């Protein structure tokens, strides 16, 4: 399968995602520059973490208007797989591909550390390789990961089983209902604050994030 990694000015996990997709997973992978207005042929797009446009104004707010985003939205609407990690998640929220918004961490600090995640839904294309209820150890690194959605929206998320990952034990940022990662209704767009690309190799002290890439690969191979 073919991965595309979108690069905005200020993206800084683009190379990390590229490394995992191409080297760890062994799949053909390409960078996609944000000024392009067309996508080539891809099976899965990764919107990487970082500080697109410096996170100035609001995380993801400016990147959301980059030329490539129209193509990304079309790709998602036609069923293509998209993973937004950290800043990528924030961009997906700003672009309206996922519901809700991000607020500043409740402790008002950037936090970088390993946290525990609970797999809430293992029937998505991104989580099928996990057990339901499995506890993962994956790092976070963000300043604005305090996920917010209004009551009606939260009800919807629960009703549709859209909450894929919850923080387990400690909620590091104040996210509503401990939400760490959600999926859209159609099940092809995943947004998550923790960094699976930082926990896909044993040298980095955890391979708990690799299941996400394995799940999507599995799904594509079965198609």
């Amino acid at each position, binding site marked *: 399968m073919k991965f595309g990694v979108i690069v905005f000015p200020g993206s800084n996990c683009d190379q990390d995602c590229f*490394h995992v997709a191409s*080297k760890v997973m062994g799949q053909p992978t390409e960078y996609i520059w944000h000024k392009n207005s067309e996508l080539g042929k891809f099976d899965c797009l990764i919107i990487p973490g*970082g500080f697109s446009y*410096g996170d100035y104004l609001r995380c993801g707010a400016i990147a959301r208007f980059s030329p490539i985003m129209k193509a990304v939205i079309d790709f998602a609407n036609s069923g293509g797989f998209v993973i937004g990690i950290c800043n990528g998640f924030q961009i997906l929220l700003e672009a309206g591909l996922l519901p809700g918004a991000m607020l500043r961490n409740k402790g008002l*600090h*950037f*936090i*970088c550390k390993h946290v525990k995640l609970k797999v809430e839904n293992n029937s998505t294309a991104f989580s099928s390789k996990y057990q339901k209820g499995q506890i993962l150890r994956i790092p976070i690194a963000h300043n604005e990961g305090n996920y917010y959605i209004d009551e009606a929206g939260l009800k919807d998320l629960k009703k549709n089983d859209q909450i894929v990952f919850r923080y387990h034990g400690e909620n590091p940022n104040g996210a509503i209902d401990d939400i760490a990662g959600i999926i859209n209704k159609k099940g092809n767009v995943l947004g998550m604050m923790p960094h699976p690309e*930082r926990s896909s190799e044993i*040298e980095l002290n955890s391979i708990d994030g690799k299941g996400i890439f394995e799940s999507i690969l599995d799904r594509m191979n079965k198609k």
Partner: protein
Amino acid sequence: MIKPEVYQALGLKDEDYRRIEKILGREPSKTELAMYSVEWSEHCGYSSSKKYLKLFPQTGRYQTMVGEDSGGFYYDDLAIIFKMESHNHPSQVEPKQGAATGVGGIIRDIFTAGARPIASLNSLRFGPLSEPYNRYLLGGVVDGIAFYGNCLGVPTVGGEIYFDESYTGNCLVNAMSIGICKRSEIARARAGGVGNPIMYVGSSTGRDGIGGCSVLASNEFCEGEEKRPTVQIGDPFTEKCLIEATLETLATGHVIGIKDMGAAGLTCSTSEMAAAGGVGVEIDLDKVPRREEGMEPWEVMMSESQERMLVCVKAGKEDEIHRIFDKWDLHAVVIGHVNDSGIVTIKDKGTVVARMTTKSLTEPEIFDLPYERPSDLDAIYRLDLKTIPVPKDLNEVLLKLLGSPTIASKAWIYEQYDHMVQTNTCVLPGSDAAVMRIKGKDWALAATSDCNSRYCYLNPNRGAQIAVAEAARNLVCSGADPAAVTDCLNFGNPNKPDRFYYFKNCVEGIIEACKAFGTAVVSGNVSFYNESPKGAINPTPTIGMIGILKKLDDRTTSYFKNEGDAIILLGDTGEEIGGSEYLKVIHGQVRGDAPALSLEREKDLQGMMLETIRAGLVKSAHDCSEGGLAVALAESCIINKDGKLGAVIDDLGSKIRPDALLFGESQSRIVISCDPKDVSKIETAAKKWKVPFRTIGKVSSSGFKIPGLIDLPIDRLETAWTSAIK
């Protein structure tokens, strides 16, 4: 006529001014005067320190690269470039932006050398946290380092932090950055090739940071202007784009030389690039992209606007370079050309506003400053152990020490830094040194920074040696072979002989130790005038050191791994409590001599440590530093918050005072743990290297116990250790 007040306020002495007139054969223009004043300043010219800095060993066991803005060493097919720099004064007045721009500056030094920045460290010093302003400084500085470094995507993997009264009123913020590139890809900071264009790239120029020169503005030139702050706002987003654009540009092969615009901006970069290339340059200031209107030529030459660089490229390739910077929405403008005159010519609106030889600018007079042993040192030096009572409750002492901010867990700090981006950090902060893998290689890098300035205050020569020895020891405990050193020399006013005594002796100590370890000093920075009305800071020669792990698999962390493992102490414990954290925190005294150090024994210890780690015998290794043996053992129990263990220490076999035994800071000691079946192999290695060896206990799951001395449950250790810095 230039009035003496004007050049004096610029920091030039009467004789400097006369020298300028003599060089030029006429009265200088405003722009020339400003240019000389910054180039001859201590900051750029190193006139008071150069005599000593020249003595640093520039070669060592690894092949080095020195003499450019930053230095490094070669290993395999790569060059490892690194440097440390201070941003003390800006951080003292605006901690967040001061620290942020410090990080920005040091990282520019790395990628201008052609290397991709792969990691940063920071070495911080504040006054006691009981004072609200010091707390504000700590919060702001950490916030600033996080704000800048996290956005850039360069992991901040380590550092150190100390608290001491002497830093109240003058905190220290030393930032270190490391980059790597192919040997063949190292870029030089020089201009060359007559007719080649000089391009200005990056952000536009404003009146930022012309503080030192505001006298030019207030004295007769532009009456009534508001004084400019010398603190600038860091723009990590632009710097991130600048890193990518610069590395892309260097990869074209069209670049002759490149230099960042740091202190003194265009002045420094134009004249030093020309001087290094043995050529001249002519610059047209009208071409410089500007953010503010009505800037005078001297202001443009002086501006320290951030995130800018100067590049000398091959003629005819301008468009290609321009296209790259355009892609990243950054300026790239030809502002001048190279000639063979050896002269810097600056033009503004068609007229020459400055014209001087590069040599006269970049070769300031070197001073040989007087030094004198501080008169109070002899009295401070004396410590009669009999006057120091041994506390009854040593549990309490241990908890107090673990809660002393200098010793306590630094997690609150390093968890605000993205220390994992780039996915290379294999040993995370919290251990003795950070270990970074290099993708595609089976070897790895380790990095640390160290300096106990209290030792340097009591005994500058030995204190500096200990800083080098401890840095090396931290690397070795992580499985790395110490390779090379950078430094940041923070001292008081060099014109005061007692301050300069500290500088001279610390430098000599570093030289001695670096020669012993075979670690060259490849880069560094000097920061003088660190004084507050209360006096000078403790002499603080911060050492940054990089080591090589032959195999990534050699990486070793400092926490205990398994119940039942043997705990071994390598090295001897003397009856030394001079200058210790124990003496300060428990008895309120800063006195005595710094701990003894034998470089020979230290080398043997490190050789043995590395040999046993490489043989796969060592499960954990942690050196004894502040707080001594008891703190090192306690830390090994609790550093890994996901797998805390205890220790039963039942055979210390020592007859010395219990407080010295537990909390004294004797050097050249390491606490290791290993599988019980490997004890004898380690003992054999110790014999071979003549390293004092003793199995002192074993890893347990039931608290930290030293019969008759210490008996504490693990969670009490942890609470004391983790709640001091928040």
